[in-house]
């Protein structure tokens, strides 16, 4: 295992492509921006989480407290290119959960802006746009995850303190 890696790295690209970097920075910025208001106004965000009517009441506040900071950390990691395997996985997972929650509530006719079940379909174009927007973010996140997991050589994944594996095993 050591010898084969030291001599012949099998990864296709050893330097990250420009597209990858731009999208990584973009998604990072999205998460950082998304977290800002929620961190500043925890009670308002808790109300928003409650209005989704998905989590049990007892978990609403904890989720409202932790989620924004997780988004901020994700955004920073993505932007800095730090801990990418973990960051991209969580990012993809979170976006899937967000979209799933939106779709679920859309299906059961819950208006999340007020937490009420609409007797008629009064959903505006704004709600559809939110889902489309999140789907775009999800696509970006999936792309980043795939690149990180399949196309990045180990020395680019490691954090700055670690030596590249190749130099470590060189005779």
């Amino acid at each position, binding site marked *: 295992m050591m010898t084969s890696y030291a001599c012949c790295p*099998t990864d296709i690209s050893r330097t990250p492509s420009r597209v990858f970097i731009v999208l990584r920075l973009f998604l990072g910025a999205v998460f950082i921006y998304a977290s800002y208001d929620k961190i500043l106004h925890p009670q308002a965000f808790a109300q928003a989480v409650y209005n989704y009517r998905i989590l049990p009441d007892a978990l609403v*506040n904890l989720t409202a407290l932790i989620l924004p*900071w997780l988004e901020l*950390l994700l955004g920073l990691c993505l932007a800095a290119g730090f801990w990418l395997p973990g960051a991209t996985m969580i990012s993809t997972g979170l976006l899937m959960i967000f979209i799933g929650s939106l779709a679920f509530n859309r299906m059961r006719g819950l208006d999340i802006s007020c937490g*009420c079940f609409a007797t008629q379909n009064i959903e505006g174009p704004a709600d559809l746009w939110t889902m489309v927007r999140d789907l775009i973010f999800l696509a970006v996140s999936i792309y980043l995850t795939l690149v990180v997991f*399949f196309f990045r*050589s180990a020395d680019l994944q490691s954090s700055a303190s670690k030596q590249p594996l190749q130099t470590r095993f060189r005779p």
Partner: protein
Amino acid sequence: MNRSFSISVQQSLWQIPALIALAVIIALGVNHWRSDGIPLVGDWSMEARFSDAAGESLIIELAQARRLFEEDDGVLFVDARLKSEYAQEHISGALSLPWQDADRYFAETAGRLESRKTIVAYCDGEDCDLSHELALFLKDMGFENVRVLVNGLTVWRKAGLPIETGN
């Protein structure tokens, strides 16, 4: 490609819990030290959800609302839902003040609101927060006696009390 995958998987196995743990620690720490922190387990009971800034419940019971409707001329019911929903059906004599456009409609209706002793805001559905938001808004505007009839339209209709349609 294979090598990259297994290393990434290994790294993600500790990075994921680490990121989550970091988020938890920072979140709880910041929440503890800030002046506007929230309780770790919130009170989402109906009384708590329908209270004002001071924590006092704004809820008015159906029986009391009915009595005001039948006996008190100084009461005004305010429908916090959209105009289209109001037009379909609303409590008799109620004023339409959609929360989504509260600023605009308030300017138009302020005259009618001012003379009233009691304002009862309502919407539809037990979890509907429009009436609550509207009540808080009206309180901010200076109205003192503002209450919320939870799930107003449905309980009113079920009790067989007067309902109107149209504008």
